[in-house]
């Protein structure tokens, strides 16, 4: 188990809110030296010295030199390590200061701000004597002073206090060192990652690479993660969440995004994130050394943002439609129309056929469900004794033209005793149902005549 792991293990205990305070505190104080180990390592000291040398011009690194590149990589790693250390330190100070002012950690989540505030407050109970201007926004200061007056915390012992402030100092030192590294980084950025720095600006590029720990790491991250790099968690302190910028990371510091109107900032950051990965890939492969690709992407993004802001084209009034010349026959009521409609209306019989009684299979023309169904016709309970065919007076009568007396027939008749209607024995026997057409019987008549003729 490494020292770090021991420390992390201890940390887990401390996450319980229940006061295990006493025992952990003792263990913690050994941990203080452990967490600040980084500052004592050779690596750290060596790199910081090198940076100083370069900055002062004592050490000249040629661009594209492998030594420079190695230094950059080391710087990257160091940045990440410093971040971790700062976090450790923050955890430590937070845990110790919980006894004094437990609400502070939720009001001031940012490690550096927390450390600064802690140093200023120290062991004070009356926060009106403490001047927090410049470290925090005034709203937060107010909230802190109110919570401090009602806190359930107790004063720290002298020894505890000293150790805590010591830890804060170290956190701040680490932060300072990190900023130094980043500045150095920024100055070299153009030669390390020209495209990325021409896309988002060297400061943001430096921060991006620094927070991820190297260009290769940046390239391997998905774009949605990169978008959120550097996003701070801010407390609301009772204010509405409408104005708190959520999900914006380092990209909001680029010049282009600063100039976009607030509703479009999200989309702009997204665009930058996607393009920055592409630019980073180019840089990793040492493709375009001049940074042209980055510039091209930046121009594209600017144009896109401008497009978003364009107004939609003016709405022209719609021209009137061509006058309709088809004169539709006016079909609106009247006695005549009603009567013509009634000729084609559904008859009562049909209505009964269309309905069925529930649970009773309907009778059909061929029996057993075959053939046409009869529905409610003739069923018990439909209210009719038997099916009657209502002859609508309006339905057209089908008249058989052939049955009518023609002129010729009348002329042919010789004696008054003979009937002008041609009657054969066949026709005599069949009884004509009144109303039914005699079409078939007529056919039979003619055939019979012919047959009997010969």
């Amino acid at each position, binding site marked *: 188990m490494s020292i770090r792991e021991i420390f992390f293990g201890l940390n887990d205990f401390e996450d319980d809110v229940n006061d295990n305070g006493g025992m952990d505190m003792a263990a913690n104080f050994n941990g203080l030296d452990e967490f600040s180990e980084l500052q004592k390592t050779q690596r750290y000291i060596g790199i910081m010295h090198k940076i100083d040398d370069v900055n002062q011009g004592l050490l000249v690194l040629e661009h594209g030199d492998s030594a420079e590149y190695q230094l950059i990589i080391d710087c990257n790693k160091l940045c990440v390590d410093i971040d971790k250390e700062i976090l450790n330190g923050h955890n430590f100070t937070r845990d110790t200061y919980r006894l004094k002012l437990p609400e502070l950690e939720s009001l001031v989540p940012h490690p550096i701000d927390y450390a600064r505030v802690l140093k200023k407050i120290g062991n004070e109970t009356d926060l009106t004597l403490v001047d927090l201007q410049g470290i925090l926004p005034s709203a937060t200061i107010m909230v802190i002073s109110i919570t401090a007056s009602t806190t359930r915390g107790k004063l720290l012992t002298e020894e505890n206090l000293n150790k805590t402030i010591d830890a804060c100092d170290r956190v701040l030192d680490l932060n300072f060192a990190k900023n130094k590294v980043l500045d150095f980084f920024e100055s070299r950025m153009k030669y390390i990652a020209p495209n990325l720095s021409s896309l988002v600006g060297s400061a943001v590029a430096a921060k991006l690479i620094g927070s991820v720990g190297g260009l290769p790491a940046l390239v391997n991250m998905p774009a949605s993660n990169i978008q959120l790099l550097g996003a701070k968690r801010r407390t609301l302190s009772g204010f509405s969440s409408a104005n708190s910028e959520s999900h914006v990371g380092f990209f909001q510091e680029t010049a282009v995004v600063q100039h976009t109107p607030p509703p479009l900032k999200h989309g702009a950051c997204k665009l930058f994130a996607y393009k920055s990965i592409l630019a980073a890939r180019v840089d990793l492969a040492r493709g375009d050394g001049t940074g042209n690709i980055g510039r091209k992407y930046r121009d594209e993004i600017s144009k896109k943002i401008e497009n978003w802001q364009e107004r939609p084209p003016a709405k*022209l*009034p719609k*021209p*009137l*439609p*061509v*006058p309709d*010349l088809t004169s539709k026959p006016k079909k609106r009521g009247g006695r005549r129309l009603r009567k013509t409609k009634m000729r084609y209306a559904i008859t009562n019989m049909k209505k009964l056929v269309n309905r069925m009684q529930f649970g009773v299979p309907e009778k059909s023309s061929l029996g057993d469900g075959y053939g046409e169904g009869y529905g409610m016709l003739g069923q018990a309970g439909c209210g009719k004794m038997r099916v009657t065919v209502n002859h609508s007076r309006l339905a057209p009568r089908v008249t058989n033209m052939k049955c009518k007396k023609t002129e010729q027939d009348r002329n042919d008749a010789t004696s008054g005793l003979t009937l002008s209607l041609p009657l054969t024995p066949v026709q005599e026997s069949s009884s004509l149902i009144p109303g039914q057409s005699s079409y078939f019987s007529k056919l039979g008549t003619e055939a019979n005549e012919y047959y009997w003729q010969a």
Partner: protein
Amino acid sequence: MRLTKKKEVDSVIRDTIDKVLVLRFGKASDLVCLQLDDILEKSVREVSKFASMALVDIESEDVQVYVKYFDITLLSSTIFFFNAHHMKMDSGTADHTKWIGAFQRKQDFIDVVEAIYRGAMKGKLIVTCPLPPERIPRFQLIFKDV
């Protein structure tokens, strides 16, 4: 569209197919003419599917042939064409061949154009004006002495 030459007028009349052509003869400086022009411009796009418009300046010399042919004497006269046929409209005034004066409302003008369109599509050469007589501008012919 502003037309000044006979050729342009010719081409416009010939080239407007299946649409009413509204030809306004007038001066750009006259008050009544300006009113009329204003209404025409406002309704150009609305009527664009079945009508098109052109403005002819009376004062240009090239066009005097038309001025004489249509007997345009009063300020602004509007003549309707359909497929190169001259459409007449009976609006209760003496002259059926043209519309004299301005329109009171944009809708009036659109109604007139629609009436002409319907009549023309049916094959009539003269249509009746759909406007009530109050809204039809009447001019008193003032002779030299009276």
